[in-house]
């Protein structure tokens, strides 16, 4: 197969899968990722569906496949800014931000020890700070540090340069615009959590113990801000009673008009995280409908046995904070009894909806629908959560399908 390469945009689980599948049948692949590391949302999770594996399990083997395959070229810190041309021959412009660290980096960590400047970790959704020079996460790919120049403290630069034994720090790296000619584009840019501050009645950003479900994943993750302890932000204690607010932003014409597919399962899964830490922990799941697509019905049964869950039919539309204890009082109408209830809980988890990562961004040459999901078009093939809200397993299936479609564009010529 001597032809133009396939471009895969997005280095999360879908993009990685598509890249590996295409490359392993012989296609040249360019894999572009916006963040400094591959892994995407899956890397941020404690466990992922369907089998509740830790992310290391699925990502590590794929990283090995990428590393050992010369047909895949990975560009991190890179974004597609323009697409032109047609199926079989697209011209793509890519903007690559400087990492300020070259390939000499061995991730020894000496630089981090001497660095004083700090930055808020977006990987941990603001729950933690990292040094200005940091490794995105312990198994990052590529396993190289990144420098956030703006977060450096005075004198940091000299200190980290002298601490690095491998001459890996290059403070003069510049932003680059790269241009590629490709035969097909697999669009796998995934999702971002909906902006919780837009849900004004739910108190996110106002009350410290109202967190999002992705923040909960970080709290439960062994390499998260609390080392996997699940401690609530206000006083770093274990929340014994947690309310899960389903459909926070999803199925809502004022926010995301679609069902985000995974949030019910995520809350069930997170109830297990609580039970894992403390058998007495209680989860209150406030729902409109509990949606467990397909065989996940079985998972619901399992969680009901293993965790202490109270299901309350009725959407939470009011959250107040007890200013002294920082506990929260959650109000909903319990539809089954027809009365309003006010539950005092230690922490609230908003089961936030998924929004396409590219929502609100205009990329010339890319078709998207009114919600920002990508529309597949000739040689541009959407997959994973860029296409619709999905779980990991189904994302991977769509990625494999997308790889086949992309290969067809090469073979047909």
């Amino acid at each position, binding site marked *: 197969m001597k032809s133009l390469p396939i471009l895969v945009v997005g280095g999360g689980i879908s993009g990685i899968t598509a890249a590996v599948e295409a490359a392993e049948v012989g296609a040249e692949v360019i894999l572009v990722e916006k963040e400094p590391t591959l892994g995407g949302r899956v890397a941020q999770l404690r466990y992922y569906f369907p089998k509740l594996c830790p992310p290391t399990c699925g990502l590590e083997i794929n990283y090995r496949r990428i590393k050992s395959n010369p047909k895949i070229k990975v560009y991190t810190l890179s974004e597609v800014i323009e697409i032109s041309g047609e199926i079989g021959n697209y011209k793509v412009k890519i903007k690559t931000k400087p990492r300020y660290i070259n390939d000499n980096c061995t991730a020894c960590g000496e630089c981090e020890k001497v660095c004083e400047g700090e930055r808020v970790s977006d990987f941990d959704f603001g729950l933690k700070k990292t040094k200005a020079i940091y490794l995105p996460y312990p198994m990052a790919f590529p396993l190289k540090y990144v420098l956030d120049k703006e977060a450096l403290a005075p004198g940091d630069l000299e200190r980290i340069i002298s601490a690095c034994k491998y001459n890996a720090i290059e403070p003069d790296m510049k932003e680059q615009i790269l241009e590629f000619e490709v035969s097909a584009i697999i669009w796998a840019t995934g999702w971002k959590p909906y902006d919780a501050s837009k849900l004004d*009645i739910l108190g996110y950003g106002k009350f410290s113990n109202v967190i999002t479900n992705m923040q909960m994943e970080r709290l439960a993750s062994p390499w998260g801000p609390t080392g996997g302890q699940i401690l609530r932000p206000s006083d770093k204690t274990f929340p014994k009673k947690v309310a899960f607010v389903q*459909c926070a932003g999803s*199925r*809502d*014409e*004022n*926010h995301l008009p679609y069902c985000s597919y995974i949030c019910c399962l995520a809350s069930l899964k997170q109830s297990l995280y609580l039970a894992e830490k403390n058998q007495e922990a209680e989860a209150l799941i406030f729902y*409109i409908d509990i949606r467990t697509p397909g065989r996940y019905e079985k998972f619901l049964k399992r969680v009901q046995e293993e965790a202490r869950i109270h299901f309350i039919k*009725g*959407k*939470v*539309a*009011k959250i107040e904070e007890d200013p002294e204890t920082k506990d929260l009082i959650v*109000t*909903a*109408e319990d*539809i089954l009894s*027809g*009365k*309003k209830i*006010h539950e005092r809980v230690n922490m609230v988890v908003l089961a936030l909806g998924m929004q396409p990562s590219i929502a609100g961004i205009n990329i010339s040459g890319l078709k998207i629908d009114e919600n920002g999901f990508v529309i597949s078009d000739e040689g541009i093939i959407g997959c994973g959560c860029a296409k619709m809200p999905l779980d990991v397993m189904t994302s991977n299936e769509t990625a494999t399908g997308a790889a086949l479609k992309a290969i067809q564009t090469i073979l047909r010529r």
Partner: protein
Amino acid sequence: MVKEIIKMEPDLQAIKEIQAIGADTLKKCYQCATCSTVCPLSPDEAPFPRKQMILAQWGFKERLINDPAIWLCHQCGDCSKYCPRQANPGEVLAALRLSVIRELMPFKFLNTFYNNLWGFPILFLISLFFILLAAIGTFGGIPNFFNAESFPYGGPSYEIWFLHLPARILMIDVVFIPLTVFVIIILLSAINRIWNFYLDTYKIPQAYRYKVWSILKVYLIPAIAEILNHTRFEKCEANKWRALPHKVLLWAFIILAFTTAIVFVMADILGFHTPWHPLLHPVKWLGNIGGLMLLYGIISIALGRSRAEVEKSVRTSYPDSLLIYLILFIGLTGFGIEIFRSIPSIKNATSLIYLIHLALVFILFLGVAYSKFTHLVFRTTAIVFDLYFKDITQKMS
């Protein structure tokens, strides 16, 4: 034991009726209950409007008539603002109120005239018919409607028993006294019906079903105090602006009713006949203040509604507009009479304005039983019931 099977049949006709009257978004509701929680007026024990939404989706009119909650709703619009389905529960409840008014009142065709634009000319002709009939009777033939000295300020005077009544006063009395009596009778009968429905719905034990007099004594006074203060209305968030103009309007009606009562006693009974000097007579001062408040209230409501419609926190249906414009034009024609009759060059136009004013007041009076205006009576009833229910629940527990 025989197993009882309860089969629920939706009332399709009722659903269509409710949808047609302003609840077209009714079926969008998916019962998440956001509305009941964001509603600042919805009580813990019997929250609304989520439950009323599903009752309406099935067309269960009976259950809705029996439910004071639809009257406790002040259409703040918080529910509609936060509704994830844009099902507009606030508007649906407004439509349910109209539909309950229709169900409770005899002579439903009158209600139809009030709920449709095409009905307005008919209402206008009906009221004109009664007023003209009375005018011909009291003025002794058709007066000249283009001459203020002939109508309304002409015609014979009548000495009945100890009363001394000019033609125009007798004309008003023969039209409006029977009209008022008619409206009061049908309203009292409707209040009696819904009160008993409420007692049954909330399963009030016999021992706590007090006599009318003690209900009025204990609960009506605090209810009225609350209404005069607009305590509930002022809890609204999304449409906070509505409480003040509505309060001003309510007070305007009270002042105007009080003025009318004084005029009725002084003129009709004691014989001190109008027109009185618009600037010097204290009763006129009061009337003018009431009139200005009425205009201020109704104009603020009209403007506020059009602003709120842009923000989509309120929608205005025909019955809303009818009431707004009716009150506005009553205010304008009321002042019109005063102004036109004091300027000699245009004085003769007073007759026609007077006639229109009376016809509109007729439509408003009848509307107390057949239009959105009926909320005045039923909301008061529901608030009395709410206070009564809260009180006896406390006593029972």
